[in-house]
């Protein structure tokens, strides 16, 4: 079967079995390896991506359900040369250690920031409750998200 959707704004078309996981299509068929596989069963959040703006585990989404949607991955945040504000905040606060959870953390955080909800410690922790960090570096990650939220609020880029 052929499936058409958008990845980071670009239209793509893949010819793959419909039950192939979005995670495998991204990594194997589209060579977008920023999205990581951790547990492969929806526990760890390492493969978090945005599907029409909602954060999902790419290991639990069959590609047949992605047809006609818009997917955003960590490659769609910033570039090597120009990180986005959230990525920069992770770098500045030490919110990334070994790095395996970072792409998923970024996408869960991005979904949270896009809601425009007040970035209290509790709200941030709930927003990343589906993302495990094996280095247990949560404090710095929460700090990074709070910093990005504050920057967006003060620069007026947060949605109303």
């Amino acid at each position, binding site marked *: 079967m052929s499936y058409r959707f958008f990845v980071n704004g670009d239209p793509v078309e893949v010819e793959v079995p419909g039950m192939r996981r979005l995670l495998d299509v991204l990594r194997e068929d589209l060579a977008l390896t920023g999205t990581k596989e951790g547990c492969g069963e929806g526990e760890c959040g390492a493969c978090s991506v945005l599907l029409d703006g909602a954060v999902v585990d790419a290991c639990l989404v069959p590609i047949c*359900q992605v047809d006609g949607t818009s997917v955003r991955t960590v490659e769609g945040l910033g570039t090597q040369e120009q990180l986005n504000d959230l990525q920069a905040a992770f770098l500045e606060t030490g919110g990334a250690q070994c790095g395996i959870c970072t792409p998923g953390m970024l996408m*869960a955080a991005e979904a*949270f920031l896009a809601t425009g909800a007040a970035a209290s410690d509790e709200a941030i922790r709930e927003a990343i409750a589906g993302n495990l960090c094996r280095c247990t570096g949560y404090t710095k990650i929460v700090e990074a998200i709070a910093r990005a939220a504050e920057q967006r609020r003060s620069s007026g880029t947060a949605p109303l």
Partner: protein
Amino acid sequence: MPVEPPVASPRTLAEAYSLLAEALHRPVAGGTDLLVQITGELGDAPERVLDIWHLDELRGIVMESNALVLGALTTYAEIRRSPLIAEFVPAFAEAAATIGAAQIQNRGTIGGNVMNASPAGDILPLLLACDAQLVAGTAQGERRITVREFWPGYRRTALEPAELLLRIRIPLPAGRQLRYRKVGTRRAQAISKVVMALAWQPDGDASWRDVHLALGSVAPTPVRAPGTEAVLEGQAPSEAVADRAASTLASELSPIDDVRSSADYRRTVAARVLHRVLRDEGGW
């Protein structure tokens, strides 16, 4: 790599019915259970899959003559956001908030919770406590199944292989109260050790009528606790009543030891959780 069984993605209910009538298909909604099972590590993967995600007929939450009707594809995130749920059965929003985390809540559906038929299904005790009805359909028509008859055994449902779960109806008798509690290892991403729903009709003199107490993770299916309900029936939630109800519940349940918890723990915690709910209501 996971197995990739053939899948059909019908765009209408009629098309889905005819595919189901032709051959055995395993339906997939949000995939939060099925996509774990297609790894083949937990037993055989399904031979054929029916992707029902695009059936918009199965979405939405509406009010229908004293019942709240949820499409089978309603996600936990939608339940959390719904003004109707917040107004009439806020306990459902509380329950949805305990399921997985954002990633799971954006994909997991109430219909999937019902059809996966896990004894630990977080929404299921609420459905039992509310006397919900499950509406299933084929091309020949629809039928309603009362929730008490829906899970005849471990991981089994009352549906025929060619039937599709369409909607969940939650009757809303005026004034009926509903409470929900879940105990898991952590607040997010936890499969429950004990999950409880309690519903009752307040009487004029603070006593309770028509008490329904339902639990998950303590038996092969979600269950009611009739012995404990009888203790609570016609009583006000005093400390003496709570003591009796808690000890009755502990003796009435026969949970098992498994990887998540021990039978003793489950029995003790279920009794204590009930005691606390009654204390909260009694205000002592």
